[in-house]
């Protein structure tokens, strides 16, 4: 009983494991024929649905360019392939920002020009009384009467 309770040392445990594995491997070789057939069929089925291999694209080779540019996993074309769209995107964004700025400045300039060339001084538009005057003041009445008189003539 004492012998049974004795623990294996690491080396003994390792040897035991390896010996067991050898036995198990031998046992696995002697499987019944029907099991082997079914395993074979399973393997064939698995191979039939295998993930297709990636087809490497033929890359253009320019005359005079070094072979290393177009070959190898980090060739020049690989770098250009991702760098070019990034550059185009950055320039595009800069262009759009610039265009928006210009358009905003033009709009402000137009409003400024309209205000400055108008007969009424720009400060008048900030005056609430002036707005009321425009709506209901005598200017609108006099304009109407002037129009009437010109029509009667």
């Amino acid at each position, binding site marked *: 009983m004492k012998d*049974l309770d004795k623990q294996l040392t690491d080396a003994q445990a390792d040897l035991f494991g390896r010996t067991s594995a050898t036995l*198990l*491997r031998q046992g696995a070789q002697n*499987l019944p024929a029907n099991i082997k057939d079914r395993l*074979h069929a399973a*393997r064939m*089925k*698995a*191979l039939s649905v*295998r993930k297709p291999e990636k087809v490497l694209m033929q890359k253009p080779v320019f005359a005079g360019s070094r072979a290393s540019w177009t070959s190898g996993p980090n060739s020049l074309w690989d770098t250009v392939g991702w760098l070019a769209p990034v550059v185009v995107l950055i320039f595009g964004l800069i262009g759009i920002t610039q265009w928006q700025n210009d358009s905003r400045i033009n709009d402000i300039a137009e409003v400024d020009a309209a205000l400055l060339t108008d007969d009424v001084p720009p400060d008048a538009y900030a005056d609430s009384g002036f707005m009321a005057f425009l709506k209901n003041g005598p200017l609108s009445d006099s304009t109407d009467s002037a129009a009437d008189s010109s029509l009667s003539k």
Partner: protein
Amino acid sequence: MASAQELSDFLSSVEQRAFKQAVYAVRDDDAALDIVQDAMIKLAEKYGDRPEAELPLVFTRILQNRIHDWFRRQKVRNAWVTLFSNMGKKSDERDDFDPLESLSAPDESEIHQDGAQKLEQSQLLQSLESEISKLPVRQREAFLMRYWDELSITETAKAMNCSEGSVKTHCSRATQTLAKALKLKGITL
């Protein structure tokens, strides 16, 4: 990247081992075959383009996951079966039925033979396989991966999704349990 031929060779080299490992776990040949087939298909379908060196570890993980899935499904199925069988249980069934009574005792000549002659290799293998089947799941996985699949401790830890220390502990416990169980049967490896 593994070619079709390399993948075929790899599957051919592991299929029998995978089957046996699945049998130790589920103790049913048909279920084990289904598990191995599922694992092979998953490997070919999803990881068929991986380098050949990665295949053993990936396949081991897939196989273990498939075995765990099978146990999960069984658990659910058994729960339903138990529920329905309890509902349809007849009242006149014998309550005093003892399954031990239905077991036949081994033939005396067999016992004599067993005690008299040395165990042959097939019997030895049978005993070993039977003891491996009785091991706790994690111990069995660690033991088989380390010694049969010949994975390193790091690879085994990766495949089992645990620490290297746990792998060493599982392996050591499995080895001690197996050695003790075989010694009880009078077998020393």
